[in-house]
């Protein structure tokens, strides 16, 4: 991200929404809404003086720390490590913008006078050749499965919260502590929260087994606490992953084969995990100080909107659909639009890097070639037969058909660069003047006739 931000040929636009996309491969027009950050990005040096000065000391939950810490109305994203490293004012948290009343300490202290409360949303129009969609994933909200008790105790954490807690830049500077500020003595980690569960998502999120084992390793390493992993199957699928699984076992983590069934908060705040140990065939209950839920990866909540903006389709699980599951895993059915990373399916870091690199390479290949190969399946008007009724013109979804006057009458004309070959005009032409190349009436009629000559529909044994 830092490299992308510094690269002379990359223009990074943050805090933006893509509103519209039109055009076609090589010449997309994209309308981008630049939301106001109320800080002049060219003047801001990222010194953080405004953050210190902000009078809204209580602040709002910090999304970067998954709600474990709080941030003020003005902040530098990602706890000061964001790219670009510039301040931004949150409209909903800033006292001036939200409540209309503030002493504006931030403006006073800013050494470069970068703060500007008069910024308005701006629409920018871009012309681009190719597009890579890399909108990422959403962490499953564990509160949707009430049995795991998420939200009932501050010591029940989801995957991201634990990740932040164990990070050196996190709210506890990397110490693993319960809400009471003590080192936990027993920790339970529950796999498949929101994955492989018909009540949430039927698919496997792929990454959770490995990150849950990493969490177990961190707990063992940092606190020496006893760790219980409740799992259905361990899917250590990647290079070196099985070895890591063995290492974590050797470190003394207890693996309990059985989906965690219920997490309850006892009197006095202690947590109890109930599950069935399917290798022993007995129900178990274990009292612990902290529960970490290995939460699933889900499609972004606005994936539907993004899909319709870029002409993508989505698979049944909500992620964007690739053009072919094996051979075109990062292409889409819209020429010139590619997918990168977890917006297409759950992926771990190496898979995401591979997927995204492939998408970037393909996007660049198209650009450097300078010309695109279009499909030959376009419509063709026979102007000898065209009566100029203009029925087709209104039907074309790409406005690829124009009307040319020749003498007293006119005929329709298809622009082959715009035509995508859907054939709607062909089916509608009352004069039969339009041919869909490779899907002509003649060809389809011959196909139908052929189906009745071939020895298909032979009597077969009843199998169903």
């Amino acid at each position, binding site marked *: 991200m830092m490299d992308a931000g510094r690269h002379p040929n990359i223009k990074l636009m943050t805090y933006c929404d893509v509103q519209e996309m039109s055009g076609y491969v090589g010449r997309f027009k994209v309308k981008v809404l630049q939301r106001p950050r109320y800080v002049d990005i060219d003047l801001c040096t990222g010194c953080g003086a405004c953050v210190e000065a902000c009078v809204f000391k209580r602040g709002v939950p910090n999304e970067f720390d998954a709600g474990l810490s709080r941030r003020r109305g003005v902040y530098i994203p990602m706890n000061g490590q964001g790219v670009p490293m510039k301040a931004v004012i949150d409209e909903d948290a800033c006292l001036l913008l939200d409540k209309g009343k503030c002493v504006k300490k931030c403006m006073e202290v800013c050494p470069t006078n970068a703060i500007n409360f008069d910024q308005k949303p701006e629409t920018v129009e871009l012309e681009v050749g190719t597009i890579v969609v890399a909108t990422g994933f959403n962490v499953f909200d564990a509160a949707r499965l009430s049995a795991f008790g998420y939200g009932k105790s501050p010591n029940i954490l989801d995957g991201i919260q634990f990740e932040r807690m164990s990070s050196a830049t996190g709210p506890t500077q990397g110490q693993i502590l319960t809400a009471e500020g003590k080192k936990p003595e027993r920790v339970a980690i529950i796999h498949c929260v929101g994955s492989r569960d018909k009540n949430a998502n039927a698919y496997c999120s792929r990454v959770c087994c490995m990150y849950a084992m990493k969490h177990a390793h961190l707990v063992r390493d940092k606190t020496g606490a006893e760790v219980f992993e409740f799992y259905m199957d361990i899917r250590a699928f990647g290079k070196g992953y099985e070895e890591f699984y063995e290492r974590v076992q050797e470190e003394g983590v207890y693996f309990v084969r059985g989906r965690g069934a219920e997490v309850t908060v006892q009197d006095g705040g202690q947590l109890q995990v109930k599950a069935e140990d399917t290798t022993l065939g007995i129900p178990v209950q274990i009292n612990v100080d902290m529960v970490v839920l290995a939460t699933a990866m889900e499609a972004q909540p606005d994936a539907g909107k993004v*899909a*319709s903006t870029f*002409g993508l*389709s*989505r*698979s*049944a699980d909500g992620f964007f*659909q690739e053009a072919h*599951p094996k051979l075109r895993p990062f292409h889409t*059915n819209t020429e010139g639009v590619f997918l990168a990373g977890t917006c297409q399916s759950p992926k771990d870091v190496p898979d995401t890097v591979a997927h995204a690199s492939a998408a970037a390479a393909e996007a660049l290949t198209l650009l450097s070639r300078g010309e695109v190969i279009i499909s030959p*399946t376009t419509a063709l008007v026979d102007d000898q037969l065209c009566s100029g009724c203009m029925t087709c013109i209104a*039907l074309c*979804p*790409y406005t690829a058909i124009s009307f040319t006057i020749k003498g007293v009458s006119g005929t329709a004309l298809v622009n082959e660069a715009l035509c*995508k*070959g*859907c*054939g*709607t005009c*062909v*089916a*509608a032409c009352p004069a039969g003047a339009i041919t*869909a190349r490779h*899907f002509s*009436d003649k060809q*389809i*009629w011959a*196909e*139908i*006739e052929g*189906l*009745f000559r071939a020895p*298909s*529909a*032979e*009597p*077969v044994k*009843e*199998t*169903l």
Partner: protein
Amino acid sequence: MTEQTFQPHIIGFLCNWCTYTAADTAGVGRMEQPPNVDVVRVMCSGRIDPAFVLKAFAEGADGVIVSGCHPPGDCHYNNGNFKTFRRMPLLEMLLQQYGIEKERFHWGWISGAEAPKWAQLVRDFTTQVRDLGPLDWKQELASKEE
């Protein structure tokens, strides 16, 4: 050919992007489905001239399936499925006027992600047409001419 072993011949006109993909996925996924449906691929369900369906019945099809992308937003060509949506109800009426039972003609939507739905449709529709028996329209015409 007894009623028990009658194997209907069904023609499916499928759009390339949704239902054809679903049918392909159903095959790749080894989903169980009877072999009675022969598929004619078109780029968009909006390409399906109602004459294709009539032609299929005239050639001797016992049933016809027309399937494309879910309206409103799934169509690869923005709104080709809406044209299908306009044409097929009219065609359905026309077929009944020709004396073809409406159970022999199915039109609808199956997205590329709905392979199990396609396999289910093939199973159900084959049973449905098999129960109706053959569409003996060629033989009937021949007997009348005699």
